[in-house]
């Protein structure tokens, strides 16, 4: 009887001690992080670090059409991107433009890009045969008027670069 009681008390104390030590172990860890928060914590001071913040090169923020210094782009208006897009984000309006030889040639009038529909899936860039569009690394897209999200990607007066078919 006494032995049983002794065992019970021993078990009881062991239980209580085990419980407390497991709690203390956790507290030690959080205490360590409290003391070493400068070293271990990863914090992006986001709006304040805009100047130094660099997104990864491949980060997909929005579709842009790069123009070179002569205000020329590489888009032929083949609508491959329009077909590849799952959401109807891209709409290409073409026009007929006279070439120097006097023939008429298809060229883009407006490259409409609706950012609000875009899911940044990169399918249009994959589809583009002339690498005319690419993904930009911007990510702050919020505006007050949703009409601003419908963008025209080709700059006014821009032309197709020579030699791109």
């Amino acid at each position, binding site marked *: 009887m006494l032995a049983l009681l002794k065992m019970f008390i021993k078990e009881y104390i062991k239980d209580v001690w*085990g*419980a407390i030590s*497991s*709690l203390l*172990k*956790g507290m030690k*860890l*959080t205490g360590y*992080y409290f003391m070493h928060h400068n070293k*271990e*914590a*990863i914090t992006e001071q986001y709006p304040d670090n805009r100047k130094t913040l660099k*997104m*990864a*090169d*491949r*980060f*997909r923020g929005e579709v842009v059409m790069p123009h070179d210094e002569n205000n020329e782009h590489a888009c032929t208006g083949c609508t491959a991107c329009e077909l*590849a*897009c*799952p959401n109807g984000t891209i709409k290409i309006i073409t026009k007929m433009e006279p070439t120097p030889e006097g023939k008429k040639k298809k060229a883009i009038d407006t490259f409409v890009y609706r950012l609000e529909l875009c*899911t*940044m*899936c*990169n*399918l249009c860039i*994959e589809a583009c045969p002339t690498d005319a569009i690419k*993904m930009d690394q911007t990510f702050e897209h919020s505006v007050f008027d949703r009409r601003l999200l419908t963008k025209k990607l080709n700059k006014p007066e821009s032309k197709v670069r020579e030699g791109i078919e």
Partner: protein
Amino acid sequence: MFEEVASTEQGDLVINIGPQHPATHGVLHLVITLNGETVKKVEPHLGYIHRSIEKMCESLSYRQFIYVTSRMDYLSSHINNHGCAMLVEKALQIEIPSRAQYIRVIMDELTRLASHQLWWGAMAMDIGALTPFFLAFREREMITDIMEETCGARLTMNYMVPGGIMYDIHPDFCKKVKEFIKHFRSKIDEYDELLTGNIIFQNRMKGIGILSKEDAISYGCSGPTARASGVSCDVRKIYPYEIYDQLKFDEVLATEGDSFARYQVRLVEMHQSMNIIEQLIDNIPEGEIQAKTKAVLKLPKGEFYTRIETARGEFGIYIVSEGGTTPYRIKFRSPGFSNLSALDHIVRGHKIGDMVAIMGTLDLVIPDIDR
């Protein structure tokens, strides 16, 4: 809804958990009937973020429909995409280059790690511990950085295309992954220290929400939830895809079927995932990353089914093709949907606090359930 209230016994309290509730991790609506603090019945009401992905896919081509699946189970978006790409490859009998296979598997396992880390933090948050959430996110941040660098996005990567992967890995990829594995190996012990050994945590978890093996099979559970009940259902082992049959890893099984078993299965799975990545990361073969495919994919007439092991369980895609460029009917068998159906069964008789803990260990992702 009103009939439900009327049909409950007197003295029962009908309480709505969700659609906006911290415990549901999304917009799941649970109508629970309580007797005091004890749960008598749980009734899930779904559809708050149903986007009708199955219907949408019927009008998308076989290249386009892949991106939608990353919006389902957003935590294992990579693996969902992988499953879809695999299905198209299977139907068209495309052999994909081994470099792409290796990269796909590494990415899958990284996604699984990230998903389990997030689960660990969120589950700890469900039972009231705050620090685990931050610890888990700190490590997850490294994975998402790796993903961002290589795939271009942090969560919905859309890195898989039928026939391979979209573009080659970033030059720093291998170095960063190795760094991450080394770092995470040292940090995963902290997970144990902080939570696993904790007496309060153990009391909250052990013997709670027991799902027997028969029930797990009958309810169609899969993934860690079923493996904790002793159901051997790891698709990676049973129906190996890509290069999983050449890899050395164990299927993690537990027999208890309680919350603690589910917890431990996932923790051990993190170790297994790291082992897999370590086996692969130094041996990525050189070569092509994409097999040659036609610009417009047309699946042959017929029915195709692919299964893949996501972080939550078995993800199945069933496509009925009429031979055109778009699927005739597509069905996603999402692991969360089946796992959720077992919730009512295992929660009954437990306290409301346990219900939250059980939901945490089931690891439900609501967009996955709603689709």
